[in-house]
Structures are given as structure tokens and as C-alpha cells.
């Protein structure tokens, strides 16, 4: 029986199971009921946690843009998000004519469910983790793919030309940014030898951001694009097609698209810290699971803050720039990183086997770091002159629009004196 202070989650679960067993329920039903309750807590918890995220995002956004952010309702404006929630719960659902009922209503639910389902496999502490699925990493990407289905349904279901166009531009962006994400996730799986997220965290004696920095950068960039945030937020950008795919939604359905959006921002930080920053690992995390949870939350808030800074400081990309970045820079770089890491690590590890485990880890990480630096340098160099050459050619061709005054209609000389 873990004592309460060191491991509250384990204590509650253990206590609950013992209580049910004492009522004489068979072990299987206790396990199922425990699963159901754990799932309910996680799902409901993540939905209400989103309120805190909305408040945090608006507050930090305000401070970054040198303004206060919500501070009226409650201390530091904490209850602003709750007030917004109550308001939006009583909003009217305006459903336009000719709408495909089932598809129209299923879209917001699917786009929120796709984000919440990511929480099922995240390991919070050494004892408390949602589920140790042995295909955890692929499950994350597959569930991320379901969000695109939600967007397609939203665009097509609302029977609106602009929503349809907006939805397909959004899906084109999401689909193309999932390629570098899937390839960069290969590296943590390679280095840890397992797809279980718990196993990945446990084998991160050296954080994977050190031994696979390129994969970490590409994963972070493509998950921001997958979330449709700041530099890649072409989906609901004002300058683009009206309001993207969620034009025809109102009330809580419209709200749920943004609940999914805010929750996804935090989930990205959580996944990044689990996959690349060593999850709950830290001094003393094995003995005291609560400490592990604190470490995880610390790393996640830092990454969440970095995500917000990126969101509030970078201007928006044009859609062709966005596609160029993805297909010409991120995907080749991710493939290069996988190839370089695989070859160099396998080639070198034969000679390192004589070293002591600690030294082995350090030297291997140093070599991997070098490999990544090499790939990054050649990538940037290659990318650089490819993009420049194209830019120079394009600029050379087009006549530069110089503000030249209109040639005045030249009257014949002798009419100089007349007043026009």
C-alpha cells in the first residue's frame, strides 16, 4: 500500500480496488470498473483542465503583447474562462438549411475526442499511467489522424462553399505536416527499442532531445502545424477564407473546436516532454512518484510556454511557404536524421561496447549529437542554395514595380501658354 504523500494516485487506485474487492466483486469486474472510472476521470479532467488552459493562454498572450489579459472576473481573472463557458452553454444553435445533420453534428465531437484520446497512453508517474499500449507511439499518430476526419466532416457537412474550401486547405496542411511527425517519431522508438511510452520514458537515462535533437525540433514544429497554431494557423486565419471550416457553427459546437485547439496545445507540450525530455524522470522520481509527476508538469509547462511564445510572436506563413517548408525542408531533414542516426550509431556502437555503461551512454550521445549536427549543417547548406537559386531567378524575371509617375499627356509645344 503506497503511502498517500509519496504516491497519491497509486494510493487512491489501490484503496479503491481493495474497497471493491472487499465487497466480493470478482477481480475482472473490479478491473473493468477501475478502468472505466480512470478513463472517466481523465476525460472529464482534461475537459475541465481546458478552462485553466484558456485562461493561461489569454493571460500569457496579454503579457506578451504588453497588455493585462483578463483580470476582471475573480482573482487575476481566473473565473473568466468559467464565465465564458457558462455563457457559451446558453448560446443558441443556429443550423443553416441544407445541412447534413449527422455529419454536421458529429464533426465538433470528433475533433475534441481525437485530442482527448491522446491522454489515454500518457505515462504520468512510474505507477500511474493511462495504459501501457505496446503500440503507443503509432496510436498517438493514428488518433492525431482522426482529427483530419473531423475537419473534413465539418467542412462538407455545413453545406457552405467557403467552409468546404477552408476545410480542404486545412486538411492539406495537416496531412502534409503529419509526414515529418511520423518520421521524426521513428527516432525515439529506435533509441528506446519499444513503442510503449512508459518504456520510452524509462529508457531515457540520457534525454532523447540530446541524442536526437533534429527529431525533437521537427516533432515540435510539425505538432504546432498539426495543432493549427500561430505560424501555421492558416485554418482560421482572418485574412483567409472567412473563418475556415467552422463558419456555420455556433454556440457550444463552435466552442468545442476551440476546446480541442487549446487542449491540443497543452497535449503537444506533454507529448514532447514525455518523448524527448524524459517524462517523469528526475532525481528521486523512482522512489516518490509524486515528484515524478511534478517533474513532468514542470517540463510540460516550460514547453507549453515556449509554444505560446512562438504563437504570439511569429507572423503567419503564406500557404505556399508553409508547403515549401514542409516538403523541401522538414521531410528530407527527418529522413536524413533517421538515416544518419541509424548508420552512424550502428557503425560506431561496435567499438564502444568495451566501455562502462555510463561512459558508453555519454560517448554514444556525443556521437549522435555530432551526427545530427552534421545532418543539420548539410541540410541547411543544401536547402540554402536551392531556395536562393530559385528566389534569385524569380526576382530577376519579374519587373520590379517601381513607383514611376504616370507619363503626362504631352501636349504639342506651342500650346504652352494655354491654361488647361
Amino acid at each position, binding site marked *: 500500500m503506497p503511502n498517500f504523500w509519496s504516491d497519491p494516485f497509486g494510493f487512491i487506485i489501490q484503496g479503491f480496488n481493495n474497497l471493491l474487492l472487499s465487497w466480493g466483486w470478482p477481480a475482472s469486474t473490479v478491473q473493468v470498473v477501475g478502468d472505466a472510472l480512470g478513463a472517466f476521470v481523465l476525460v472529464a479532467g482534461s475537459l475541465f483542465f481546458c478552462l485553466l488552459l484558456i485562461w493561461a493562454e489569454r493571460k500569457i498572450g496579454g503579457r506578451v503583447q504588453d497588455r493585462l489579459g483578463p483580470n476582471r472576473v475573480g482573482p487575476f481573472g481566473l473565473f473568466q474562462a468559467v464565465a465564458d463557458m457558462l455563457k457559451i452553454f446558453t448560446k443558441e*444553435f443556429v443550423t443553416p438549411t441544407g445541412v447534413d445533420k449527422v455529419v454536421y453534428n458529429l464533426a*465538433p465531437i470528433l475533433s475534441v475526442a481525437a485530442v482527448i484520446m491522446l491522454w*489515454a497512453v500518457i505515462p504520468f508517474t512510474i505507477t500511474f499511467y493511462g495504459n501501457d*499500449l505496446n503500440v503507443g507511439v503509432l496510436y498517438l499518430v493514428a488518433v492525431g489522424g482522426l482529427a483530419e476526419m473531423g475537419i473534413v466532416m465539418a467542412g462538407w457537412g455545413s453545406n457552405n462553399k467557403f467552409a468546404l474550401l477552408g476545410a480542404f486547405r486545412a486538411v492539406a496542411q495537416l496531412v502534409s505536416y503529419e509526414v515529418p511527425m511520423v518520421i521524426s517519431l521513428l527516432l525515439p522508438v529506435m533509441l528506446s527499442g519499444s513503442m510503449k511510452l512508459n518504456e520510452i520514458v524509462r529508457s531515457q537515462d540520457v534525454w532523447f532531445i540530446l541524442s536526437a535533437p533534429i527529431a525533437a525540433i521537427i516533432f515540435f514544429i510539425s505538432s504546432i502545424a498539426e495543432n493549427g497554431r500561430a505560424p501555421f494557423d492558416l485554418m482560421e486565419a482572418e485574412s483567409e477564407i472567412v473563418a475556415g471550416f467552422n463558419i456555420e457553427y455556433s454556440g457550444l459546437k463552435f466552442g468545442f473546436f476551440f476546446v480541442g485547439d487549446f487542449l491540443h496545445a497543452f497535449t503537444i507540450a506533454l507529448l514532447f516532454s514525455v518523448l524527448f525530455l524524459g517524462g517523469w524522470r528526475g532525481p528521486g522520481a523512482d522512489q516518490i512518484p509524486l515528484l515524478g509527476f511534478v517533474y513532468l508538469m514542470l517540463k510540460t509547462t516550460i514547453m507549453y510556454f515556449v509554444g505560446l511564445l512562438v504563437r504570439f510572436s511569429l507572423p503567419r506563413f503564406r500557404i505556399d511557404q508553409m508547403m515549401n517548408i514542409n*516538403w523541401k525542408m522538414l521531410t528530407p531533414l527527418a529522413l536524413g536524421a533517421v538515416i544518419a542516426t541509424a548508420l552512424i550509431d550502428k557503425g560506431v556502437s561496435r567499438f564502444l561496447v568495451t566501455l562502462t555503461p555510463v561512459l558508453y551512454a555519454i560517448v554514444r550521445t556525443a556521437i549522435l549529437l555530432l551526427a545530427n549536427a552534421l545532418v543539420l549543417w548539410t541540410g541547411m547548406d543544401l536547402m540554402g542554395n536551392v531556395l536562393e537559386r530559385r528566389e534569385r531567378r524569380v526576382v530577376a524575371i519579374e519587373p520590379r514595380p517601381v513607383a514611376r509617375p504616370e507619363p503626362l499627356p504631352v501636349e504639342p509645344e506651342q500650346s504652352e501658354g494655354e491654361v488647361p
Partner: protein
Amino acid sequence: MLSDWLYIGIFMLLSLFLPAAAIVIAGILGPKKPSPIKNSTYECGIETVGETWVQFKAQYYVYALVFLVFDVETIFLYPWALAYNQLTFYMVAEAVLFILILLTGLIYAIRKGALEWQ
């Protein structure tokens, strides 16, 4: 193995039903005053012009296509990545050949300009 999927199944059902329940509650709470103007599709205020089914460029199709090819490539690469620690250098080179073949596909798509956004 099955208990994992039982948990995932329960989790999936719950994450579909809780938002749906919230929407149903909001539907009950919210006022219902439909009017023909309110229910017309939103087109920046002007009447909808022409049918909703609008034409598209083939550009979207090419993105989904390249994504499909690289997605299917991961079916082979993830088991290989799982077993990476027990592989010899020759086996790793085989997988690198696999990646290189598909990298040439990507380079072909880039050079042909299919991935540009017209």
C-alpha cells in the same frame, strides 16, 4: 493484450459521449428561435451564388497522395525501429536502402514541381 484495448475502447467511447452530452445539454439550455434569415448559409452577407459543390485544384490530391506513400512506408519502418538494437549493420543498411528509394520518390515530386502550391 485485450485488457489494453478494453481500456482504449472505454476511453474512446467516453471521449465521444462526454462532448456529445455537453452539446445536448447546451441544446436544451439554449434558446431556439430559428428564422429563415438566420438559417441561410453564411456568405459574407450576400446570397449564396451557385451550387455548393465547388471545383478544386488537383493540388490537394497530390499532397494526400505523397502523405499516403510515406504513411505506408512507416508500416515497415516501425517494426524495424523496434528491433533496431538487435540488428547487425548489414540489416540497418537494408532499411536505409528502403528509405533512400522512397527519398528519390520525394525528390522526383519536388523536382517535378508537383508539391508547389499553384
